């Protein structure tokens, strides 16, 4: 059978399941590292970062130089392909090349200048970079100047319009951009290759990311101890029972909008069909009739959220079994705590979402996201429910401040006291994967999933009320990719907030925990259901004026999101430019000794 005619649909289904599993597990492992690293950085320590792979210098040099040459070649080829037969290049390609080249240039310059500042200038290029940095007031002002140049170029190209001047500007930005990109890439990599010449080997650390890999490898080889009085079978399967549901609940999360292929559903879906991705879809229907929708969701279940609650509930079984099967009183206490805590918060977890379900009118997660894309994000529709759900979700994943099942101050390590090696690591990972899956669910239900403000299914469409400010058509594939990236960023941001909570709040007492669950979250979520129902009823009978006012508010919420994203970016730049507050103070003989040596000499901190 010809491989080109084979039906690859089952392969695609398997691929998206594999993506979900890999995404959950990798992000979970990453979070175990991030958690430690984040806690360390709050105290101005580096944290776990010592794992390193040593590479021969010649190899790294070859990779650097060949990679830069390849990137330059690819850019020049792309420039050749994008250049129209006649007339000036398009606004988009001129912007692309100009901005990319400016970015790479200032970024390389900043790296070189700050490196030379840290270890002293070693060659004329170093001296040039440090001189430039000193003239501007510091390496970070090279970055500021570069960013300002990027903004200026953007406005120059957009404002200059289609006239003769505009054509010249686009021409220059396009051609000079491609050339400058190549120059910056090649010279930057040559500089790096030359400066590492004297070193016998180069360490690959990936900002300390190898550390979780080393930790995982280590736990695999550690001794697995089962206490003599333990139930061997239950003791061994409990980690799996905890691990499995935390991972598979990610299956119902849609990572992006459905991809529409112009191949009839009854035809076999071959490799060639991948090329029939529709370039433009309209906002109304999912996909045009006669085409195939490929949903970026591993499990397209019509029970939707119920699947999440059903499986998340089985996580209790693992913790309780682990506590019972360990033949240890501390474990048993931990298991009991875990079971009663998770059962209590499951109730609040489900009830807080009822309000959202009433508004969205569906329990399918992808339809919820579509509702949010048409109207407003869930955080604006159900802000109260979000706070309640967030608290319940943190409690459900048994993390600080609700980590009483493992409360080490009173019951050693709770239900996994008697676990070691990879089984212990599985409890550990499943906690973090539960963080990932609850963040994914929160991003989908309250933060619009793959929807980004003012990006609809076919275009960037900036409109408030009836006024359209900008409409820029973008192809279907690009919008879906943008959405997937946006969704992943939202998940990571929410995970990050959950981890920060860990480093902020102390642990509750057990009666406080129960009181919060039963006497605060539960009644409040019932109140939320009542309030939501009342508002829905009122809006159903409302006049056309009220309805259009609500629509206007929904549009404004999108504008608020886009505005706060832009403001956040500006604040970030301002923060990065802020000079550190340093004040010399020699208050001890040890400080005087350090001063006499010309400051504290530090070996390079690899991070």
């Amino acid at each position, binding site marked *: 059978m010809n491989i080109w005619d084979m039906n690859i649909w089952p392969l695609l289904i398997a691929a998206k399941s594999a993506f979900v599993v890999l995404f959950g597990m990798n992000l979970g492992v990453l979070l175990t590292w991030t958690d430690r690293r984040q806690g360390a950085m709050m105290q101005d*320590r580096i944290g776990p970062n010592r794992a390193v792979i040593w590479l021969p210098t010649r190899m790294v040099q070859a990779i650097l130089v060949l990679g830069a040459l390849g990137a330059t070649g690819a850019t020049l080829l792309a420039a050749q392909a994008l250049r129209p037969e006649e007339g000036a290049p398009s606004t988009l390609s001129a912007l692309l090349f100009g901005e990319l080249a400016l970015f790479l240039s200032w970024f390389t310059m900043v790296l070189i200048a700050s490196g030379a500042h840290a270890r002293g200038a070693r060659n004329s290029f170093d001296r040039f970079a440090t001189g430039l940095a000193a003239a501007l007031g510091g390496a970070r002002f090279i970055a500021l100047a570069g960013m300002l140049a990027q903004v200026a170029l953007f406005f120059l190209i957009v404002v200059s319009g289609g006239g003769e001047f505009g054509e010249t500007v686009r021409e220059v930005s396009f051609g000079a951009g491609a050339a400058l990109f190549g120059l910056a890439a090649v010279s930057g990599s040559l500089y790096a290759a030359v400066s590492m010449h004297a070193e016998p080997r180069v360490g690959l650390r990936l900002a300390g990311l190898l550390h979780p890999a080393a930790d995982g490898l280590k736990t695999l080889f550690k001794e697995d101890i089962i206490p003599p009085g333990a139930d061997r079978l239950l003791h061994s399967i409990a980690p799996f029972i905890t691990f499995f549901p935390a991972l598979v609940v990610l299956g119902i999360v849609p990572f992006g909008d459905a991809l529409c292929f112009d191949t009839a559903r009854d035809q076999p879906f071959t490799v060639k069909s991948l090329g029939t991705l529709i370039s433009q879809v309209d906002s109304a229907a999912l996909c045009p009739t006669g085409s195939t929708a490929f949903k970026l969701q591993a499990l397209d279940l019509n029970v939707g959220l119920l699947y999440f609650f059903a499986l998340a509930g089985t996580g209790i079984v693992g913790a309780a079994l682990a506590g019972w099967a360990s033949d240890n009183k501390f474990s048993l206490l931990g298991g009991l705590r875990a079971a009663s805590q998770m059962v209590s918060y499951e109730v609040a977890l489900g009830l807080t979402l009822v309000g959202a379900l009433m508004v969205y009118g569906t329990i399918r997660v992808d339809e919820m996201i579509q509702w949010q894309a048409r109207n407003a994000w869930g955080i604006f529709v159900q802000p109260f429910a979000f706070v309640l759900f967030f608290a319940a979700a943190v409690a459900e994943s048994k993390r600080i401040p609700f980590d009483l099942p493992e409360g080490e101050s009173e019951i050693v390590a709770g239900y996994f006291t008697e676990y070691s090696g990879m089984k212990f690591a599985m409890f550990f990972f499943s906690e973090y994967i539960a963080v990932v899956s609850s963040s994914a669910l929160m991003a989908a239900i309250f933060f619009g999933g793959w929807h980004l403000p003012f990006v609809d299914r076919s275009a960037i469409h900036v409109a408030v009320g009836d006024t359209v400010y900008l409409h820029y058509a973008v192809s279907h594939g690009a919008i879906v990719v943008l959405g997937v990236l946006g969704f992943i960023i939202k998940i990571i941001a929410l995970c990050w907030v959950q981890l920060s*909570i860990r480093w902020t709040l102390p642990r509750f007492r057990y009666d406080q925990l129960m009181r919060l669950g039963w006497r605060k979250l539960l009644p409040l979520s019932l109140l939320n259901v009542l309030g939501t129902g009342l508002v829905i009823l009122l809006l159903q009978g409302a006049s056309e004026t009220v309805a259009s006012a609500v629509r206007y508010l929904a549009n404004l919420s999108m504008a608020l999101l886009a505005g706060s994203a832009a403001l956040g970016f500006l604040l970030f730049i301002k923060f990065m430019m802020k000079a550190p507050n*340093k*004040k010399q103070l020699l208050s001890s003989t040890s400080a005087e*000794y350090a001063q006499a040596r010309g400051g504290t000499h530090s070996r390079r901190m690899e991070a």
Partner: protein
Amino acid sequence: MKASPLGPRGVVGTPLKRPDRTISVQSYVPEIVKGLGITMGHFFTNTKEMVLGQRNDPNTEAIADGINTVSYPEQQRPYPERFRGVHRLTEREDGSPRCVACLCCSTACPAQCIHIEAGEYPEGDKRRGYERFPDKFVIDELRCIFCGYCVEACPCDAIRMDTGIHPVPYDSREQFIYAKDLLLKMPGRKNDHVTENPRHEPGEATHPGIDRDRH
């Protein structure tokens, strides 16, 4: 009524303001957001300063915005001036040890970790008859309790603990036995092998006491 500085019970002190149980405190959420702001602020500031190489010098610069942390072992804090580190044997101007093998230090040592075997200068040496020299000088740094009595006891300023080096861990017990050559090679805080106190040899004009020629 004017508040008495002693308070109603006659106790001197400033009354502490109790935290208000306002709605924002009791509802947790604004307070949690404030707390998150503080931890995230530390995180971002420290990360930015570490990435941009703007960290304060942990020894010579005051704690400003963030936390001033010594990132041991990449950065180290020099020990204070009077820190008792591992021992060193000081030298005279001509490079010979100042030690005269009087056994004061080994006698004073409560841990009995100093072993000295005295040697006699050969016949005809100008120091013969005045003093002896340590043929062997051994300190067991593992037994040593770093009390500094040996330094106190030494009449010649020959043994000092001003190296500023803390005792280092080794693989085996033998490596902790510091012999004369190693002790003589240990530098002081100024990276020298002499001391501030000048030594006045017999026969020199500065020698304060009596000797063979002046008595």
